[in-house]
């Protein structure tokens, strides 16, 4: 029985680049090996492509009737028309403790809310089971889950506090003071914070150490997000510039002038392809963040955008005032794009986040939290080993161990994460040049100054003699060293000894024909 054909596109996706050519490999044996390895990789790619058949879940959608647009539908109507489980995902929480910030876990199962006036609540938003709810009796600037739903960080008035999901304070990091925004980099186990003094700090939560902290010299940082593609922090500010930061370099890796006015919002899509920025000029721009070029699209809104987020499936959501608008595509083709959905919430929007693996948009406002249904926003097929919304306790533990084992060192954070699998050509070149230069080194000039001796002790002739002696000695020493180094190089690159069948042109053994050679003259 033959297996079904594999979709070419899928195969290409999993092949991860061009084949290695056997011409670039030295011996026959290794050529064969390389060829065989390609067979393995092809097989792996095919298997992966075949496994795509398991992604059988389809994303949701709304279809409008004639003379209607989907933007006209309110949440109420949507809820009425969906199944019960989906309907439970839309809910409103009216809370009293000031403007709220929100955060979903990586698997999208748990929700963390932090109110400016000290209210913190962590709960499983699907089952509405609360982990903890408390008031820290202090201003809360931002909240963030750590790698698991059992722990979260809270940027309070002065310092950053850590709590477990029971609400017990685990830690307080005083070195991170007056933090405005926080981001957790899940693969590096880093909690990145940006303070109102302009300091950026990265805390390794696996070892409890601040791995980098420096002043960005950008003043108060109030707009920050991470690029999930390369774990680089993107900060925006009043200069209309997006700066990208890594813990290893004190200067921004890149700066992009995105608006000619102060910025109001920033977001990077989960695949790390697009950067969406909002400015006071009431525009929303979409950039290609990998090429650092753009804008790919410029949208004009009625008012300045105050929050932006992009879902896993590319739904662009932004809020202007108390209105949340969602667009099906990040980069829209039509001249006058009409929104996919539009919802008016009860107050000014302070936080906007799509829930991963769910068709849900969480909106936190000044007066509480609203969970909106946005059909077709979330990825319907989840990878259980990557992020499992239905994870059991055991699985969670397993995942934690795996994640720790696969932790990426912070040194590798750079604009191009794939750079790690390349060769450092520059250094390679330098090494080659160094090796070459060894063969042609010149003895250095020695400037010897003899010690000044008392009159009548040394004499100019003696001094000159001494000078010569020292010079000669140095030169000899140098030549010896150089020869050694040269010999080493030659030794390394010597041709391998010939096989027994090979008759060398010039053998060390004396032959009859040696008599015809040009003889060395004895001096």
């Amino acid at each position, binding site marked *: 029985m033959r297996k079904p054909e594999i979709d070419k596109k899928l195969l290409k996706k999993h092949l991860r680049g061009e084949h290695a050519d056997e011409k670039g490999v030295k011996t026959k044996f290794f050529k064969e090996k390389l060829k065989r390895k390609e067979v393995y990789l092809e097989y792996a790619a095919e298997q992966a492509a075949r496994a795509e058949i398991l992604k059988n879940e389809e994303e949701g959608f709304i279809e409008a009737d004639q003379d209607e647009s989907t933007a006209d539908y309110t949440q109420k109507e949507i809820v009425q028309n969906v199944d019960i489980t989906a309907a439970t995902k839309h809910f409103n929480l009216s809370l009293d403790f000031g403007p709220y910030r929100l955060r979903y876990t990586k698997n999208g199962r748990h929700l963390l809310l932090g109110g400016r006036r000290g209210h913190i609540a962590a709960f499983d938003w699907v089952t509405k089971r609360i982990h903890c709810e408390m008031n820290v009796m202090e201003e809360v600037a931002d909240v963030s889950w750590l790698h698991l739903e059992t722990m979260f960080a809270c940027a309070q008035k002065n310092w950053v506090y850590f709590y477990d999901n029971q609400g017990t304070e685990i830690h307080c990091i005083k070195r991170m003071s007056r933090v405005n925004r926080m981001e957790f980099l899940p693969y590096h186990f880093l909690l990145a914070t940006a303070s109102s003094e302009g300091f950026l700090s990265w805390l390794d939560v696996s070892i409890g150490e601040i791995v980098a902290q420096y002043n960005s010299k950008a003043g108060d940082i109030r707009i920050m997000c991470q690029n999930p593609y390369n774990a680089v922090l993107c900060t925006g500010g009043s200069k209309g510039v997006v700066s990208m930061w890594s813990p290893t370099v004190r200067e921004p890796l890149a*700066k992009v002038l995105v608006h000619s006015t102060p910025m109001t919002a920033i977001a990077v899509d989960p695949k790390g392809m697009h950067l969406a920025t909002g400015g006071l000029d009431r525009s929303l721009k979409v950039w290609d963040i990998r090429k650092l070029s753009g804008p790919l699209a410029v949208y*004009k809104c009625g008012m300045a955008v105050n929050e932006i987020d992009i879902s896993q499936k590319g739904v662009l959501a932004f809020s202007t005032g108390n209105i949340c608008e969602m667009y099906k595509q990040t980069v829209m083709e039509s001249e006058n*794009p009409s929104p996919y959905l539009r919802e008016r919430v009860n107050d000014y929007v302070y936080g906007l986040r799509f829930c991963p693996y769910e068709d849900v948009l969480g909106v936190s406002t000044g007066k509480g939290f609203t969970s909106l249904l946005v059909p077709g926003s979330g990825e319907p097929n989840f990878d259980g080993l990557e992020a499992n919304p239905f994870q059991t306790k055991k699985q969670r533990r397993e995942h934690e161990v795996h994640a720790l084992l696969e932790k990426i060192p912070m040194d590798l954070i750079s604009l191009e994460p794939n750079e790690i699998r390349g060769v450092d050509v520059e250094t390679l070149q330098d090494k080659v040049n160094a090796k070459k230069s060894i063969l042609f080194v010149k003895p250095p000039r020695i400037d010897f100054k003899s010690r000044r001796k008392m009159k009548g002790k040394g004499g100019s002739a003696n001094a000159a003699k001494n000078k010569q002696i020292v010079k000669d000695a140095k030169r000899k020493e140098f030549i010896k060293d150089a020869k050694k180094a040269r010999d080493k190089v030659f030794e390394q690159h010597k041709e391998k000894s010939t096989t027994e069948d090979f008759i060398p042109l010039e053998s060390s053994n004396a032959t009859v024909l040696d008599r015809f050679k040009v003889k060395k003259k004895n001096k």
Partner: protein
Amino acid sequence: MSASENENQSGGEEEVDPAAHKQLLRSIGQLSRNQHIRKPTRSEPALARDEFHLVKPLSTDVQTVSMGDVVNLLRKTSKHIDAGKQLSKTQHQKKILQKPLEKPVAERIQRTIGYEKVKKDLSRWDAVVERNRVAEQQVFPLDYEEVHADLPPPKKPRGTTIKSDLMLEMEAVEAKLRELRGTQHTDDDEAKRQERLTREELIARRKELAYLRIKESQKSARARQRNKIKSKKFHKFLKREKLKEQIKEFELLQKTNPEAALEKLETIEKSRVLERANLRHKNTGTWAKNLQVRAKYDKDVRKDLAEQLALSRELTQKQKDAAESSSDDEASDERNGADKEEVDPFNPWFKGSKKAEQVDEVAEFLGGYRKYWTERNANEKALEEYREDSEDDLEQNSLQNGENEQPGSDASNDVDESNEATNEAVNSNSGSENDNVSGNMDQSSDSDSEFSAGELEKFKAKLNYQKKNVENCRGKFTTTAYSSPPLVNGEHGKLKRRKQTEEEVSPHAKTRGTLKKKRKQPIVVTSAGGTDWVVEDIGETPSKSVDIDDIFDDAENLLQEKVHEKICKLSKDLEKREQRKQIKKEKKHKSKSSDLSFKVKASQPEIDEELLETSANGEPVIEKPQNPHRLANSKADKPSKQDEIDPSNIAQIKPKSLRTALPDMVNSEEFFDEHDLNEKVQMTIAEAFEDDDIVADFERDREDERKKTANEDVDLTLPGWGSWAGCGISKEKQTKRLILKFPKEAPRRDDNKKNVVINEDGNKKLKQHLVSDLPFPFKSVQEYEASIRAPIGRSFVPETAFRMLTRPATVTKLGTVIEPMNDEFLVKAPKAPRNAVDKRIAIMEKNKKKSK
């Protein structure tokens, strides 16, 4: 050789009468009859006799007892007649044991034989070793499958079953049957069983030993014999044979293993050079000097000397290019002949000087040999094929045309034979010309002993042509009434025909001219294959009868068509090749122009490789100064200009206005008109940020950033220096000298993006983790990168693929003894691949073999 002969002659001059000589010896022997070594006198009876005391008597013919006497004696008595006969028989038959070889020689022979045997034995394993070395996975202990599938079923031990009457009867019947069928089968079986079961190894070993002994004795005998031979001629032949053998080997190697062939060539070269250099035939030795004295008076001696000189010249002479002389051999020969006539044929020096002009590279010498062998092989092959073809046809036709006594193939054969004949005639002509015109020893000896290359070429060409011709004309000739002597079959007939055709040579020569005229369009084939002969030969083919001219015209036409086709094909091939070349060139060009490819640049030094500045071709590599920055950034620079968005174009991207709703906080009355709204808000913003020009700020920032990394020239001029001369003096010269110039910085990644600043040192820390060496088997960076492009971990590839990618190279079964491989493995077919990857690899392997 002549020298030895001379010596023999000189030795034979003083004649010796053997009888007189014998007499003389005898009389000398008589002078002292007393024996110096006394016979031992037996004082005591001793059982053992010591061989050292057996003294050979002095006069052999008197005292010794000859075998004949004994035989005669035995014959006399009737009792011992048989014994006498046997004795005489043995005397005739016996072989005296030869003196054993010297110990070192014997040992050497033994060693070589042993070495060869071991080598042969081991070489059997080569394939297995190779296979195992590249095997993806090996499982130990090895499972040996039974190779002999047709073993008899195991016998039940006797007496365990009681046979019924019927069974007994059946057995009896079977036995009878077996007898009837003959015992052959059973015998075979039994022998096999015996072999398998008993003494199998013993016999094998004995055989082997016997074989070895035989070999050894043969070799030793041969060596002994050869050593004994004093004939110089023999040794000369031996040497020549050896050389030929070497060349043959070389030919073989040339096809299979060019490198080894090259080495072989070198050794051959060496031997030749050795011979050439040892002044052997320069007539400078004592022998030659002695002869030179006599040469004045003796013609033979002169001849001998001349021969020697000619030989030396032959060795040093450039070999005539065989290919050149192929087509216009006759004409050139004639011309040469005319030239040579003026020269004194007996003056070797003159000849030498003439030849010396042609002397060329040493390599030509061997080239001749090579050509000779290749041609000869090709000829033989062609001949065989042709013969087979013709024979096949002959049979077929004889079957088909029953009474018709002139099968088509024969006709064609005849035609071909006639071709041959002409060829021969031409050759003989040329030969005779040579003989007549010049006493050129070289040439005559060449033509006699070795094939002249031109001849061979021609012959080969003709053969090829014949083949074609046969194929072309076969169909036609069967029907024509072409009269030729009836053929019985095989060699005999062929011989006859040859004779006949040889007789017909002269008419050919006559007809040739006329036929040539007949041809309407002479075909000039100017292909690389040198096939112009094809056309000419067809003119020569028709023999005496005129009515077959039409046939030949037809054949010619056919041939023309074929030739035309071939030309077309060739030209197409040429075109293709050229195109390919062009493409290659273009590719090369492209690759040169682009910085992206690591692969093509030979200038890129290899880390593990030699630092010598010669490439594999031996051409000096011109190192291109490559900017490392550029290399490093090459990836980032990838996007072409089309992708890069001109910052000035940013503004030109038309903003799309979204139909956003207005939030509650805004007074909706203000925004009743969209345009109005835009203007108003813009106004407010412009007012709000009147002071800070964000874009200008950014640009300044960008400039600063870029300046930081830029290498600026340093001006070392001191103030006031050089300005004393007043105005009007140009400062250029000085300033140029005093400015320290730094290399221009590599292009930055943000060069074309005005709204972007990219930090060039952003990945300094990352670089510490990068590979900065090219590991062993890789030659280029690109290949290495491609080889590690794909992850193999569980979290990146499916589980099945992961297991396959990480399967161990060897699997050993726990708790079992892993025995070394035995001979069975040699005949065992490799296991059929089980999983998908192994299957694919097997297919790949197969394809590779096929393509080879």
